[in-house]
């Protein structure tokens, strides 16, 4: 029991996940900057490694303002709820072994549900702050959900169909049994859909429409300051970890790799992190080379191209399986 609690709290639980997700933000920022011929974070720690943590701590210490017009309940609840949901989702990832901290049949569905809940939380956060820009941003976030959620779910389900399991453990085990990763095969299309849809889930370019700075200031998060904003920023980092980890687990075999007896948990962790960093690099590359779409363009893109592709993939996967 005590081991289980320690596992959930420290490794590979909350503390580990938070540290790694801040590190992922650093990778994302540094790589983005280098692709743009800039330096990126370079002040806090060696190569600016502690910059995301420094930013977070700085936000925690800033003044906390609740606007008079805002809904106090939602304004307090949503910044806590959003990172909690995503952190809970991260607990299912098989980081240090084939099992996550929590693992049961159907945990893939739970992760998808948690991500949708997070978007709904964001919608509530925007509407609860009672600001024109925030409510436009919130509406856009909800609209965007309609656009990307179904292709994302279908892409993830295709991985489940082709391995015949709805649990992450089952999918990883099937990849181990086959000896190949899912990405080598028709699921490559699934991976592409997953990358595009994740970009929308994380609200990053080209789909950073709900918080488009140049159009609606900061969208749904415009009224949040101090630690509330810090928690939302943390949510973004956790999402980065969750989605790159999910991509690595489903399509790149997660913690699989050559093992040395006695060192399994360590090696599993290393393989998992290396693969999810690969997915993260793909995310960053996508963010580098596109301009932001308009919300109507985004919706029509996902219903015209992403949806048919996802349905096509489902058919192919069914036929093969």
């Amino acid at each position, binding site marked *: 029991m005590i081991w289980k609690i320690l596992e959930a709290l420290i490794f590979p639980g909350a503390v580990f996940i938070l540290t790694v997700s801040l590190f992922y933000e650093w990778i994302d920022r540094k790589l983005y900057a280098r692709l743009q011929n800039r330096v990126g974070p370079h*002040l806090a720690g060696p190569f600016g490694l502690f910059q995301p943590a420094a930013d977070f701590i700085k936000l925690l210490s800033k003044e906390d303002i609740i606007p008079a017009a805002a809904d106090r309940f939602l304004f307090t609840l949503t910044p806590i709820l959003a990172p909690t949901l995503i952190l809970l989702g991260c607990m299912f990832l098989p980081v240090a072994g084939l099992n996550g901290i929590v693992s049961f049949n159907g945990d893939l569905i739970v992760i998808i549900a948690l991500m949708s809940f997070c978007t709904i939380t964001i919608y509530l956060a925007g509407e609860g702050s009672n600001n024109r820009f925030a409510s436009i941003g919130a509406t856009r976030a909800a609209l965007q959900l309609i656009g990307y959620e179904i292709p994302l779910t279908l892409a993830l389900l295709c991985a489940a169909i082709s391995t015949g399991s709805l649990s992450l453990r089952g999918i990883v085990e099937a990849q181990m049994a086959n000896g190949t990763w899912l990405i080598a095969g028709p699921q490559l299309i699934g991976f592409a859909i997953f990358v595009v849809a994740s970009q929308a889930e994380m609200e990053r370019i080209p789909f950073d429409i709900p918080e488009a700075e140049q159009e609606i200031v900061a969208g749904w998060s415009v009224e949040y300051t101090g630690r509330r904003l810090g928690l939302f920023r943390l949510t973004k980092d956790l999402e980065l970890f969750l989605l790159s980890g999910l991509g690595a687990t489903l399509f790149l075999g997660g913690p699989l790799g050559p093992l040395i007896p006695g060192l399994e948990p360590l090696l599993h962790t290393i393989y998992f992190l290396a693969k999810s960093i690969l997915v993260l690099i793909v995310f960053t590359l996508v963010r580098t*080379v*596109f301009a932001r779409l308009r919300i109507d363009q985004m919706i029509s893109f996902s219903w015209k191209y992403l949806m048919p592709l996802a349905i096509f993939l489902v058919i192919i996967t069914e036929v093969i399986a």
Partner: protein
Amino acid sequence: MKVPGYFLAEALRNLFKKRATILYPYREVDKIHLPEGFRGKIEFDRSKCIGCQLCFRVCPAKAIKMIEDEKGKRPVFFIYRCIYCGQCAEVCPTKAITLGKAFENIALRKEDLEVR
């Protein structure tokens, strides 16, 4: 021809290039090269000044004040008002005023930004 992500090749090529940024205020301060004829902080040579007041009259920012010292009239320059146009240096008949290369003109006290 529409190619999504056309820019990717160029971006990846730049990943291995040297960065364009100079880490100016922290490191690499010596990497800043100011060209010949840069218009920076005013330098004043008292021995050449003849006290003709031309610089005082011509200054568009009223950054120059005339005072008396033991050798007669002379200007004082307030860098915090200076717009670095270089008109005083141009108009000076004896070239007592020149624009130097100091551009980090920040101080905590007003007196530090006076050229006497």
